[in-house]
């Protein structure tokens, strides 16, 4: 994770340090607005969240209507979170969801990016815009519209399956549910990831394809053997986003929840955090669970980056 080992950054960064003493203050001034905002709106709230996670709302004063007030309770909230089956089972569901959502988002994004970059396709401009458009649809609305398309009575898919004598597909129950929730995330996320990979593909020197093409390689072979390895860093980046996105999945199941009996308020960890914070008025517990989730995300990301570096670049 050390930036100085970066192949691209190394030489250039060193060149920038050419004349020390002349501009020691400039980079700090450039960074100042970002740093101030970073401290005020990220670091301080994080510190506050950690502080809150050590506190609890407990009844003070006598009587059945004693007021709940904040007091220090140590690590109780962490114990509660780590022993809560609701919270822990959420990670299992997260895994099932992630196994569908992450590979499909990345796979589709890569396929579309390669197709956009290939010489054998047309309708590129239209397709590129079309695939990116769902990214612009707010999550609240995305789940509402997919809800209409999933529910048996309003779904046009039901009309087709019923005409074929197959009955209706229970999109929002059983194991199909994972696919249905993942589909919304895939639909909304493919375009964004496609653009990242595509931007990277556009940077591959044309000579490389031409050489392969002269050797008689097909477009498919060029894509798999030449292009994919060259955009591996971009794929790692999108994988990281997809993974973080998975750990933070929340919006889609939350807005689908009122439409089905199969999604509980603790379906995924972030939903449990939200329930504790807003529905159960247990902000300290939510803060403890958040801290755990954030630390977990950090660890998973670091491990993924390490692995990716070793695999894709052999420079670890």
């Amino acid at each position, binding site marked *: 994770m050390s930036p100085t080992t970066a192949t691209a950054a190394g030489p250039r960064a060193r060149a920038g340090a050419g004349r020390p003493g002349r501009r020691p203050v400039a980079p700090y001034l450039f960074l100042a607005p970002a740093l101030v905002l970073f401290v005020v709106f990220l670091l301080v709230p994080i510190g506050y969240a950690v502080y809150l996670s050590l506190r609890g709302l407990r009844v003070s004063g006598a009587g059945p209507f004693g007021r709940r007030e904040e007091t220090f309770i140590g690590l109780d909230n962490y114990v509660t979170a780590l022993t809560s089956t609701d919270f822990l089972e959420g990670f299992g569901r997260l895994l099932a969801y992630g196994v569908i959502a992450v590979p499909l988002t990345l796979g589709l994004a890569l396929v579309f990016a390669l197709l956009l970059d290939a010489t054998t396709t047309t309708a590129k401009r239209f397709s590129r815009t079309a695939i990116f458009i769902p990214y612009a649809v*707010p999550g609240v609305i995305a789940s509402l519209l997919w809800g209409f398309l999933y529910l048996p009575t309003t779904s046009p898919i039901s009309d087709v399956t019923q005409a074929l004598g197959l009955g209706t597909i229970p999109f929002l129950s059983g194991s199909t549910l994972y696919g249905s929730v993942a589909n919304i995330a895939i639909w909304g996320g493919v375009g964004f990831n496609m653009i990242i990979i595509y931007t990277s593909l556009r940077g591959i020197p044309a000579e490389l394809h031409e050489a392969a093409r002269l050797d008689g390689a097909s477009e498919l072979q060029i894509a798999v053997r030449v292009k994919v390895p060259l955009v591996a860093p*971009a794929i790692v980046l999108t994988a990281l986003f997809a993974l973080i996105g998975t750990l933070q999945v929340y919006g889609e199941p939350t807005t689908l929840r009122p439409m089905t009996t199969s999604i509980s308020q603790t379906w995924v960890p972030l939903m449990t955090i939200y329930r504790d914070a807003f529905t159960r008025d247990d902000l300290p517990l939510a803060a403890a669970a958040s801290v755990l989730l954030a630390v977990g995300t950090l660890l998973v990301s670091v491990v993924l980056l390490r692995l990716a*570096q070793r695999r894709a670049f052999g420079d670890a």
Partner: protein
Amino acid sequence: MSALDSAVSPVVTAPHRAPARPPRQAKVVPTAILVLGAVYCLVPVAWVLVASSKSPGELFSTFTFAPGTGLLDNLRALFAYGDGQFLLWSLNSLVYAGIGSVLSTLVSTMAGYALAKYRFPGRDAVFLAILGGVLLPGITLAIPQYLLMTKIGLAGSYWSVLLPSIISPFGIYLCRVYALAAVPDEVVEAARIDGASEWRTFRAVALPMLLPGMVTVFMLQFVGAWNNFLLPFVMLSDERRYPLTVGLYSLLAKGSGEPALYTLAIVGAAVSIVPLIAMLLFLQRFWRMDLISGGLKG
């Protein structure tokens, strides 16, 4: 870090010459897959547009993709709702997303440039802290941010939504990558040798080269802020300050004893998606430039 650093940077070292390629005959299968993907993405959007033409009665009684007869009535009801609240929400969204993403892009560009083009004590620590910021779930921060905003007397104000959205660790990270790739050190050095101040070097030399990257960051920030739900939901309690997402949500989440206003929410969604699509179509041209143009022209 090399995995992330080089994610976008090949672009600079290797110009892409699409027009030089021999035009090949389009094949059916690859094009079909691509178009299928486009259709998959467009069908639900098309549904929003179709459904927004349905009257409240038609919404639940007619075939899903059958156009309705109530578009004008729906629009009228939408803009009349709560004395024109929808228009207010749209303006609010424009303020939050517009001002927020312009400021965010500027702040991120300056920070990214500093991280990419200077060596100074604490640089690595700052960069790692920012990377860590990318990984934090927004929901974790929303409530502490609310409590802190309250302490400085800003909760419920425009500032409470605007200020936290200016800081974008991901934007800073992207800007750093772009600056590494698109601004050659030789150019920066040359400007310094000509006697330009650091600020002038940044503004007159680096900034034009960074512009395509800034457009991307602006676009991502704008879409992100436009679609942001949780932060304004937690911060705001006055519906006159709601952005569109919270406003549309409030149409759906009514108290018991009041039906959800599905029709209004759907027509509102349709109206609110249109400007975003227009912006994407407009900003599309900048993607065509990729980073090369910025990097090479310099």
